[in-house]
């Protein structure tokens, strides 16, 4: 392999989660459902993107579905645990209850999307279901989740928080400040570092001189564990140990999940910087869904059980797409609402008084190279 650094080769990453997992049959099938839903939903989004129905960029988590789903599955939704995802954590959000129609509405910039057209892609949250939307400034969610879990501690609540960062975000000041603060305060927080080998085009070897990212835990005086992120059961189990530790008052754990980003940073990225053969090797030898299906079959699941999940996922995505496509775009003047609780909305500027839509009166010259959606 041309790359150096801590990302394992597919062969090395083949370790599996234990065969004695505490998960019921239904739960094991549910893990498959969330991984399949993640992948199929993203495939549907690719179709919509190619039809120019996705207004902004499209971010895939192809090959990372197991780490996202397995880790989030370790949280206890009945206790009010909260996670904050990153851009490759569609699967984690689905586990917490995010719905496919919401995701499609977000991508299509619809007026009834969770952020009413203000934010892109999977940048949204819901405190009731237990996920807080990320922002684009990597690392910033670590201090925020330190504060969320600080509130759990202050109120003596039996709740845990989980925050995702990538290999790239471990280089930020916010990551350091947030994890250090949470460690000192012994906040009930799990920090999952998804090491997928690349931050945009930058390989791990140019991101850090550390041999492995889990080593950073030592410097913060917290527990650290590493696991195969392409094994959904291993991802679940390692995160579950961290969640249990946090809930028992044991403070912060850094969990490094080893995985691989098979698509570019976003759909436009041609991955010219990736060594030849690397992506194919991971696709053919270490696809997390393929691996899990083999495991399910080995554990006695019927083929019909698996295909019925596939059918359920396909139906849900069709219904979600129809609903999202039928959704309206936002009213332009909704842009003025809700920057503060008080005042509840801004006044229109003098040149927009009485005008409902900017583009009715301001045609953009075609020479700008832009077009209205």
């Amino acid at each position, binding site marked *: 392999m041309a790359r150096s650094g801590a990302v394992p080769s597919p062969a090395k990453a083949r370790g599996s989660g234990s065969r004695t997992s505490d998960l019921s049959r239904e739960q094991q099938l549910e893990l498959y459902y969330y991984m399949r839903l993640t992948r199929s939903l993203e495939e549907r989004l690719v179709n919509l993107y190619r039809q120019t129905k996705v207004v902004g960029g499209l971010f895939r988590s192809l090959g990372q579905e197991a780490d996202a789903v397995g880790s989030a599955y370790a949280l206890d939704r009945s206790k009010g645990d909260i996670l904050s995802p990153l851009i490759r954590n569609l699967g984690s959000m689905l586990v917490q209850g995010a719905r496919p129609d919401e995701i499609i509405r977000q991508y299509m910039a619809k007026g009834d999307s969770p*952020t009413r057209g*203000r*934010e892109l892609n999977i*940048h*949204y*949250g819901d*405190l009731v279901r237990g996920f*807080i*939307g990320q*922002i*684009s*400034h990597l690392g*910033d969610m*670590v*201090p*925020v*989740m*330190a*504060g*969320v*879990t*600080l*509130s*759990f501690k*202050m109120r003596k609540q039996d709740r845990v928080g989980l925050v995702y960062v990538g290999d790239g975000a471990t280089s930020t*000041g*916010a990551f350091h*400040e*947030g994890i*250090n*603060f*949470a460690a*000192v*305060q012994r906040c009930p927080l799990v920090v999952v570092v998804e090491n997928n080998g690349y931050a945009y085009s930058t390989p791990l070897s140019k991101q850090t001189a550390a041999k492995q990212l889990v080593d950073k835990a030592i410097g913060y005086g917290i527990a650290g564990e590493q696991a195969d992120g392409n094994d959904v059961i291993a991802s679940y189990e390692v995160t579950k140990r961290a969640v249990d530790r946090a809930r028992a008052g044991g403070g912060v754990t850094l969990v490094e999940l080893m995985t691989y980003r098979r698509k570019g940073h976003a759909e436009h990225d041609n991955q010219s910087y990736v060594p030849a053969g690397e992506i194919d090797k991971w696709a053919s030898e270490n696809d997390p869904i393929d691996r899990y299906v083999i495991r399910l079959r080995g554990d006695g699941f019927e083929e019909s059980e698996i295909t019925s999940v596939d059918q359920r996922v396909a139906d849900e995505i069709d219904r979600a797409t129809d609903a999202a496509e039928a959704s309206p775009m936002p009213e332009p003047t909704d842009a003025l609402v*809700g*920057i*503060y*609780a*008080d*005042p509840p909305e801004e006044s229109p500027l*003098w040149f927009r008084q009485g005008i409902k839509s900017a583009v009715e009166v301001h045609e953009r010259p075609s020479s700008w190279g832009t077009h209205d959606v």
Partner: protein
Amino acid sequence: MSEITYLEAIREALFEEMARDENVFCLGEDIGAYGGAFKVTDGLMAKYGEQRVIDTPISETAIIGAAAGAAHMGMRPVCEMQFIDFLSSGYSILTNYVATARYRAMLPCPMVVRGPSGGYVRGGPFHSQNPEAAFLHTPGLKIVYPATAVDAKGLMKSAIRDEDCVLYFEHKYLYRRIKEVMPEGDQVVPIGKARVAREGKDISIITYAATVWKSLEAAEQVQKEDGLSVEVIDLRTLLPMDDEAIVATVKKTNRVLIVHEDTRTGGVAGEITARINETAFEWLDAPVLRVTAVDVPLPYSPPLEDYVLPQTSDIVLALRKLAAY
């Protein structure tokens, strides 16, 4: 009732708000056992314990980010920046995360970021700053900057009770120089409302924080020496700005001087001037003038600092120029 200082007024507000609402807590560097670099939080930890008065690592990003996370969950954090100069170390998370949270994610962020600000104290480039203009440009934040002890207390109460993030600048030159008797009971000062610090009819000074006092001195001087009647408007809140009060004083005196301690270019005075120009141009009998610091980092040595910062004599000069226009 005896007088208390501007600093003690802030402290009183913190004590009273923590007693009123158990969700209020303080976090910052050296604020607990030590009581803060200026002793604003002195005694808070002894009364409320280290769970609610948190000594943090030197981590402005973590302090502000953690406050935001706790605020989402219904807490009411009050962050101390040891000096407001260090607010810039938390600039990204404050402007990108906190200020946008309600709008982009419908996440409430009721929190206060407070800290000692301003010069005239020989603090040098990193212990004298007035960074309010940087945040005036950030939708989603509110900014208050009191000049009196009564306002210091009342605005702190309002800031803590506000549903959004309030930057609370406290002027360290005023900490122990300004003393007042506090009003009885639970007095709040509304955010977004300016105060007429001195009534007048010939010229208006629009200002805030320490230069309110320099403006009052200058007004007194030109009253005696020139017979000029100068009105002084203390903005108290910079964001949202009290446009009504600004336009009212323009219409009353038709001559306006804006005074602030911060540097000139891109400063608050430029914004106020633009607003007057757009909404009350025909009421002006003279161009709007500014007295501000010159555009340099604030130097340490007394002759240098005195030269850079606005002084009462500068304000007197500007008032005479406006009167003669």
